[in-house]
């Protein structure tokens, strides 16, 4: 199971807990996790990636294993601890005022 940590705005939107778990078939990539997340919580479509282009929204970041992997190509496999479920894939809003 893949663990995904959601930021507060998206937790309230999806009416779920801080961490959700997803079944994701191999290869476990950023795209595959986000596809599974959006399939489970359709309301999240458009909030993390653009509706049409599927590009990451500018102020959304992806962290895993204490690394910022936001700029990794979406089809890159996620780190092994994320695939093993020992570490979460973290989605956060970039640090900004407001």
């Amino acid at each position: 199971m893949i663990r995904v940590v959601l930021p507060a705005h998206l937790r309230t939107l999806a009416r779920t807990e801080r961490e959700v778990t997803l079944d994701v078939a191999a290869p476990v990539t950023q795209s595959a996790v986000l596809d599974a997340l959006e399939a489970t919580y359709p309301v999240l479509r458009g909030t993390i990636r653009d509706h049409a282009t599927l590009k990451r929204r500018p102020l959304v970041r992806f962290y895993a294993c204490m690394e910022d992997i936001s700029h990794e190509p979406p089809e890159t496999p996620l780190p092994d601890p994320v695939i093993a479920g020992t570490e979460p894939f973290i989605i956060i809003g970039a640090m900004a005022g407001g």
Partner: protein
Amino acid sequence: MGSGVRVLIGTRKGAFIATSDEKRESWEISDPLFAGWEMYHLKGSPADPDRIYASQSSGWFGQKIQRSDDGGKTWEPVGSEFAYDGVPGTHQWYDGTPHPWEFARVWHLEPSLTDPDTVYAGVEDAALFKTTDGGQTWSELSGLRGHGSGKHWAPGAGGMCLHSIVLDPSDPDRIYIAISAAGAFRTDDGGVTWKPINKGLKSNWELPDPDADVGHCVHNIAMHPSKPGVLFMQKHWDVMRTDDAGENWTEISGNLPSDFGFPIAVHAHEPETVYVVPIKSDSEHFPPDGKLRVYRSRAGGHEWEALTNGLPQENCYVNVLRDSMAVDTLDSCGIYFGTTGGQVYASNDSGDSWQAIARDLPSVVSVEVQVLP
């Protein structure tokens, strides 16, 4: 006469619903809805007051539209994909260079006067969208953006937003809209074709040609349903009116202490009674002299009186944004407005007296009111 009113308040950090009976003396305020999100606008369907649409926005996470079918008790997300029709092209950027059209957020939702499933959405970058399935899908009425002047539109300080949508109750094919900073436009064929209606507007400091066809920074327009050819406008500077559906505008600022401001509203039962909130200037977005005053004209403009009873008359430096004023239709007309300081003021006597029905909300972006059956 209704049994009460419901005030829909959009703020920078969530939405709130205030309710009262028809006396409008004591109020209950809900807990925050959609806490943490920018709630640009909430508006109920005139055809079904329990149907409410809300624009939920975030700089991080984009746009959502929420719908309630039970008067705001519960909400469900509906469609939030606002895709411009075709290749969107460019408009003018702040520095005069071409800039691609990019969707940012929904500023204003205007439900149909007759069909709860039909809603118009005014968005940034400026365009008009429409749903006919209760918000599940949205289509652009691209004749507006494509009518020819679009490449010359430029954003105002708050973004290039389509913020005003006024539906003509006597003609379902006639719609007025306004854009900052492009001006006012009208369609007479249900949104297929549009024409700029800015003759008479003057932007002496903002445009190289003060009388240009487009480019004016219109802040808000309002209409009384009994006189659909008469519109009132708060422009960046100047308060204006038209008596011929926008073909010609004349200034009615008269004795206002400042003719800069954002919202404008018309009394529910007196088509020539108009309300504005003067703001000192385009750089100083607060009331003149630290006094929060609504100004009322009972003559359709030119002659204005300050309404101050119950409003702070010293050390007040809040702003009142363009969608933050509304009127109810009870026999004694109620007027409501919200401030960037988080206050919501209400009058149950056409503006003669005011009370704060909320004092410490997040910065208020929009206020709408419904009279409940």
